[in-house]
């Protein structure tokens, strides 16, 4: 059976949006899927909106560009306005409720958790992205959590190996939020 999953991830420059997408792509690749990762940068050197498009497929991918995503991961408020019309009707919106207020209700699925607050509680605001990854893999069940841990460990720079631990904690917290304790 052919399975294609298209994810758009968006947030503020500095929230680790690109790494979030890379982790998903690297993990899916380790499970023998075809993957593409397409980052998009604005003109701003600092701040601004960052987003990336990740496609995970059981067959070769013709184009890395995503018109309508199956899943939208939104990490800050401005990104919601910019990207809400890039989600397909039956898609899943995963939102960082620490920074995003969802007012209008749509037919799409909604998962909102306070990723930023959870990361702060864990001790490092920068791992909010991994909490979101945990929620994603637990909801979608398309990538094994152990593979995500392997991807994070492989991707960590040699001088930053000590950070793997808190990234893993954030990932597990995200999974726990969806699965329950």
């Amino acid at each position: 059976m052919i399975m294609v999953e298209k994810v758009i991830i968006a947030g503020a420059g500095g929230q680790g949006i690109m790494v979030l997408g890379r982790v998903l792509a690297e993990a899916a690749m380790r499970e023998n899927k075809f993957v593409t990762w397409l980052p998009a940068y604005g003109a701003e050197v600092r701040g601004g909106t960052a987003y990336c498009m990740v496609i995970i497929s059981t067959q070769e991918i013709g184009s890395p560009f995503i018109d309508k995503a199956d899943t939208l991961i939104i990490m800050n408020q401005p990104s919601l306005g910019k990207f809400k019309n890039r989600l397909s009707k039956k898609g899943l919106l995963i939102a960082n409720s620490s920074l995003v207020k969802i007012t209008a209700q749509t037919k799409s699925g909604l998962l909102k958790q306070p990723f930023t607050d959870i990361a702060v509680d864990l001790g490092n605001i920068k791992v909010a992205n991994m909490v979101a990854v945990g929620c994603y893999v637990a909801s979608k069940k398309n990538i094994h959590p152990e593979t995500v841990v392997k991807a994070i460990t492989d991707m960590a720079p040699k001088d930053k190996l000590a950070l793997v631990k808190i990234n893993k904690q954030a990932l597990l917290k995200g999974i726990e939020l969806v699965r329950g304790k």
Partner: protein
Amino acid sequence: MEKIFSHPKSLRKVSTHYCPGCGHGIAHRLIAEVIDELEIRERIIAVAPVGCAVLAYDYWDFDCTEAAHGRALSVATGMKRIRPENIIFTYQGDGDLAAIGTNETIHTANRGENLTVIFINNAVYGMTGGQMAPTTLLGQKTATTPAGRKVASEGYPLKISELLAQLPAVKFIERTSLHSPQEVIKTKRAIKEAFENQINQIGFSMVEVLSPCPTYWNLSPKQALDWIRDVMVKEFPLGRIK
């Protein structure tokens, strides 16, 4: 009570995306004030560069057009030839004007097109990540000169303004700076003259503005201004060049 100071009509009331301490915000505003004072807003066409100021048209409230990187002066030439009654200016960084666009810059100046050029010199390629530019100083560390620019491998900083001054059809070149309130005032005066020259059909006029880039100079905003005052002006002296 008489209103003597207000937000320029030619400047939109929006926040910009520029880094803290960047010179673009000041330069945009000076241009807007001059255009208001000369009452040419309805006749203006700006050509935006490629670089950090690529979205300058989101910040100005007058007609603007885009151009491929470095080609702004050719686009401006085409527009001015067809619509000489419009006041047309380009706003270009040192990469746009003196690297990829050197060809267009020299030949537009040499033909003596009646245009106004605002040349923002921050001695780096900003938007692309702080690489060495033609105007980077000797010893300056950039993304592509991590050990500092060396004569033997990278040559000297390019003085495009001094080069263009040798062309007989070029009518006005002045180098100014943004590093202090006095210099900002002088920059505005020079910009005004460069626009008046076009209105009065005097000919090719350019203002080179030394502008801070705290992000890629690895300095605080205040330190960046001081670096212009203490280091940059020694290599790029201020004043009338032509």
